[in-house]
């Protein structure tokens, strides 16, 4: 694991920062799509190293943040059923739905369990044959293969008490929706490293082709991110727009065929609702034909009230890169990590949480 120190070398970082500071072109706005990038940028204090004419915007790449209230309401409704155990990733626990959160439902008696991997939910189902066990799956292409693998394993085991509620989403269609809406000027995209280890670089090719925006797939160490920014600036200086891979130690153009095959074995692509972005066609993962036996919505009772949004919360605009978190009137006052109003303050990869925790320039 020596690679970690290698990608945090001060001299290397300083040389890249100096190269970025020499940018003499017009002001540019570069969007980091992924929540892990957002956190890494704040954790390492990278914004402070950039000149004012190079601005970073945070995009819709936090899977918890883009999960709409309705999906969370469904999970809470399922968990509130006394015959149900609901398992999900820890980050989902505190996200407020329309009326409460999974953490509050758990404190009120619902059997909600934090799973560190979807396979744990399968094990819970095996150990609790009299209960219906629902895995509430959230995440982008990074986590979808492991969820798919757990579903295929449940099928192989012939489990009849294991169910799945999907909030899995796909990144490229969301980027297309964001660029198509044209609400925010983006001069370059720092594309997500983990997602790209699965899907490769090809699904982003429409971005330079149709929108003339350069893309760099980046790793998560400070040197990775600074190099990705320098590569984007180089492309802008040369008037080029391509998809480049900075994260070569993990990403190949064709992605990971085995993971993609596993995903295809359990899921099919369909429309999905995104917080802040609304419905986006072909952006969600649903159970494929032949896997209907696992559909929680089909087999389990679930009473939900109409969803509602917190009036003052501006997470939707944060997710679209339209505002920075401090521009929201409740940021840091009515909305904090302990008492979050919107999901961007809840998730460890949420933009608001990163701004609140690390306070840029502090």
């Amino acid at each position: 694991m020596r690679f970690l120190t290698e990608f945090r070398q001060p001299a290397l970082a300083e040389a890249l920062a100096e190269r970025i500071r020499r940018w003499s072109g017009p002001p540019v706005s570069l969007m980091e799509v992924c929540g892990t990038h957002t956190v890494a940028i704040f954790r390492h204090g990278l914004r402070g190293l950039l000149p004012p004419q190079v601005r970073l915007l945070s995009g819709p790449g936090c899977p918890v943040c883009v999960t709409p209230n309705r999906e969370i309401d469904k999970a809470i409704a399922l968990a509130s059923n006394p015959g149900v155990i609901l398992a999900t990733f820890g980050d989902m626990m505190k996200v407020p739905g329309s009326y409460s959160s999974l953490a509050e439902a758990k404190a009120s008696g619902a059997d909600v369990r934090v799973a560190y991997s979807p396979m744990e939910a399968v094990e819970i189902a095996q150990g609790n044959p009299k209960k219906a066990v629902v895995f509430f799956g959230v995440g982008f292409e990074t986590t979808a293969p492991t969820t798919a693998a757990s579903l295929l394993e449940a099928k192989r085991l012939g489990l009849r008490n294991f169910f799945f509620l999907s909030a899995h989403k796909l990144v490229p269609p969301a980027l297309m929706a964001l660029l198509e809406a044209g609400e925010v000027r983006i001069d370059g995209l720092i594309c997500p490293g983990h997602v790209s280890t699965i899907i490769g670089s090809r699904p982003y090719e429409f971005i330079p082709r149709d929108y003339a925006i350069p893309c760099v797939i980046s790793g998560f160490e400070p040197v990775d991110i600074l190099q990705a920014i320098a590569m984007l600036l180089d492309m802008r200086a040369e008037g080029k727009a391509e998809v480049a891979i900075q994260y070569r130690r993990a990403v190949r153009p064709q992605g990971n065929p085995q993971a993609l095959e596993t995903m295809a074995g359990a899921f099919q692509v369909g429309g999905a609702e995104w917080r802040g972005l609304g419905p986006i066609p072909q952006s969600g993962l649903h159970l494929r034909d032949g896997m209907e036996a696992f559909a929680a919505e089909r087999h389990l009772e679930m009473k939900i009230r109409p969803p509602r949004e917190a009036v003052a919360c501006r997470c939707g605009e944060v997710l679209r890169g339209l505002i920075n978190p401090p521009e929201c009137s409740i940021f840091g006052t009515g909305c904090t990590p302990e008492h979050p109003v919107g999901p961007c303050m809840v998730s460890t990869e949420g933009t608001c949480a990163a701004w609140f925790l690390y306070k840029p320039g502090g």
Partner: protein
Amino acid sequence: MPRARVLLGHGSGGKLTHQLIESLFLSQLANPILKALDDSAVFSVDSRGRLAFTTDSYVVRPLFFPGGDIGRLAVCGTVNDLAMVGATPLYLSAAFILEEGLPLADLRRITASLKGAAREAGVKIVAGDTKVVERGSADGLFINTAGLGLVPEGVDISGSNARPGDAVILSGPIGNHGISVLLERQQMGFVSTVKSDVAPLNLLVAAMLQASPNIHALRDPTRGGLATSLVEMARQSGVAIRIHEGKVPVDEEVAAACEILGYDPLYVANEGKLIALVAPQDAPGVIRAMKKSPYGRQATIIGEVLAEPRGKVLMATRVGGTRIVDMLSGEQFPRIC
């Protein structure tokens, strides 16, 4: 109202815990001794000296983990709370809440480990209690320990005694306990040799006190990690603390596990480490003394105390940036992105 209930996050040792303590417990139970909010209460019984008194409950899952178990933890945690106010730990009580069905062999093993830790720390278990609750009411077993110690004359150590200019000393690499427990609990399929650092630190502290009369504050960064403990001390003393990322030791395997999981090692729990805020001229001598102890061999200066901004902790990052370090908020969870 669902919001009016206790959430798991209230026990994380971070901000929610502090809010609960301040808004509920302190507001009703406050007195000058409790309000000091140090790891142990320190008070005079009569003119002969001062006592340190503390209590803690242990609810770790799994009960056995690489490098330790709940029995060793229950002794070390309480001994360390006494040591962090400069006290010499003397007597402990141990109360067991056992869940129906717990294998007696496990209880025997845990008790033997508890005995071993007490012997190592030089304390006696002089009182105890046993309760059994129905299956499903506890996670195997819970242990509560209380501890009593004597604060030597002239020793005045408190989280509120930090002074600008003090050196921030850390006794060794962080994150081993939290990561070892997490990997053991979740069986994530990592091949790992990470072991918990759980250890009694009273002899280390005794050696430090021999080396310097100018140790102002001590704290063992347990739940909430190094970051939360530093913020607590900065707030208690009304000072700022600046640490340097490149100087904070993290074992390679712990760093790698944190990287894969998306954890920040600054917030991962420790059970055998301490932070000392020491007058700068005494820091080299204190470190020399620490290095002679098995639990301080990797002691090092990681930062300094500043006058401003009061109550804040800053970190100079390896790549030349600066960031604010805040308390843990809720629990850390593996990234899903």
